[in-house]
């Protein structure tokens, strides 16, 4: 804003003592335009910045890969990765493995959601369930899900059941606690207002607490789904005969570095897409929620 100019110029240590030239003023103007705390940039500038970083990253990668500083066996160029990606999705049917991984994540995560959401809401609504379960869940949460994989292989073999369990273990405890926390943020005055309007305990849970916490719980699901992707790849790398994780491991055995990149990027893309999907669905489901950022 124009009325801030004198203050900011005076505060600039570079200007101390020296006369303020036209060039200085211009530079500080641009600087302020870009770097003001919490100031929004125009969509064009914001989009250009986001794109610029992607481009710079790929360019850097390409430069490094073709510089001869790194053995091409370990770092393929983006172009090689692109070719391998095309081949593996058309000829080698990598999408089948991707489909299997997606299926495992959806089932494992789905089971976690079905149990975690109602339990989290109960814990966030009744001190009874909170006292009963919170310390136990908080303890289990710190046991790394990946450490259970060898045990689960012994118990369940290397079938899908083992994959579901790894994802379930990796997401369920956190998700329950996150849903509980989201439920606890429902403002008490809303609950009391419902009480004064004659709502029963059950109605308060279903018509106020659940409805009020739903957007936050939805956000919890979005975040935790991202973790599920990590767990599925770990589970598939340790013990599997299909799935993207398995393909990554196989590629590693054959020193097929571009293929490893393709596997990693595939998971990344699916993750980003599911994130977009969640955000779009969230805006549709909760039009009343005011959001300034996605």
């Amino acid at each position, binding site marked *: 804003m124009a009325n801030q100019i004198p203050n900011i110029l005076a505060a600039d240590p570079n200007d101390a003592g020296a006369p303020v030239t036209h060039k200085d003023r211009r530079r500080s103007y641009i600087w302020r335009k870009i770097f003001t705390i919490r100031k929004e940039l125009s969509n064009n500038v914001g989009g250009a910045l986001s794109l610029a970083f992607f481009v710079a990253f790929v360019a850097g990668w390409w430069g490094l890969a073709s510089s001869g500083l790194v053995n091409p066996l370990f770092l393929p160029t983006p172009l090689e990765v692109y070719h391998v990606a095309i081949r593996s999705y058309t000829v080698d049917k990598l999408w089948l493995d991707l489909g299997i991984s997606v299926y495992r994540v959806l089932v494992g995560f789905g089971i976690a959601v079905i149990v975690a959401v109602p339990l989290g809401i109960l814990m966030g609504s009744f001190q009874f369930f909170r006292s009963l379960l919170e310390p136990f869940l908080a303890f289990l949460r710190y046991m790394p899900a990946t450490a259970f994989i060898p045990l689960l292989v012994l118990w369940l073999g290397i079938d899908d059941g083992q994959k579901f369990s790894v994802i379930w273990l990796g997401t369920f405890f956190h998700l329950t606690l996150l849903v509980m926390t989201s439920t606890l943020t429902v*403002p008490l*005055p*809303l609950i*009391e*207002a*419902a*009480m*004064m*309007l*004659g*709502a*029963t305990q059950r*109605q308060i849970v279903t*018509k*106020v607490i659940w*409805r*009020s916490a*739903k957007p936050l719980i939805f956000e919890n699901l979005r975040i935790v789904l991202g973790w599920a992707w990590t767990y599925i790849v770990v589970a598939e790398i340790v013990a599997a005969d299909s799935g993207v994780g398995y393909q990554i491991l196989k590629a590693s055995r054959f020193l097929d570095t571009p293929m490893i990149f393709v596997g990693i990027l595939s998971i990344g893309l699916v993750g980003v897409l599911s994130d977009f999907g969640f955000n779009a669905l969230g805006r549709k489901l*909760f*039009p*009343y*929620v*005011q959001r300034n950022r996605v």
Partner: protein
Amino acid sequence: MSMIQIQKVSKFFPGGKSKNLLVLDQVSLDVPEGEFLVLIGPSGCGKSTLLRIMAGLAEPSLGKVTIAGRDVDGPAVGVGMVFQTYTSFPWLTVEQNVAFGLSLKGTDRIKNSEKVRKIVDRVGLSKFLAAFPSQLSGGMQQRVAIARALATDPKVLLMDEPFGALDAMIRVEMQAFLIDLWQQERKTVVFVTHDIDEAILLGDRIVVLSPHPGRIHEVLNVKIARPRSIQDTETSDFVALRHALRTMIFAMGEANNALTRPEQVSDCLP
């Protein structure tokens, strides 16, 4: 016949170091049917706590409250409440918010919607039936809250500083609105405020509470003729009453500042 009877109600909160904090000390009060009663006093006098006890949202440590002859032991049918914070449900439209209490009963939808529209019209929000609370101003949100409470036909309306968060202009507007509403509905209202003008403008009686512990300091009858309007604030009766109240409350505040330890003040919040 008295609608609300408060019988020797005391409330203490368990404090640290073995000392309980006494917030209300043997408060007794009768509110006749159709009266507009105002509770006023400096912060820490327990006025909100007393209202919450009447609502059944807090339990008295000693004594009891009866409303329409029934002991209060929880939020009861027939008692509506309007809070200081905005409590409209953000996921419901204005119409759905006002219908909330009725929809809980599972009564006839069509009948409900007629009634809801009538009440929404009554509070002047007909144009905003389909709006979400986030699209409304603070004053309009409080109108929604009042309409929502009225929709369940309460005999008693409890209002906890309902205009406290509104700016001065809107507040005056809302006071005029409430005067008008009460003039027609003649509900029994208990209204908590710390605004002296608001107390005189609205109340049939003003109960002045003194702090630490909360006790009834004085009960004043407001003899200014009804229906009242904002113009009445300049009449000599009004000015005299305002002066008396202000002197009373400020004297308490000073005595209180001299006595209170800082930790007590924060403890008094409900």
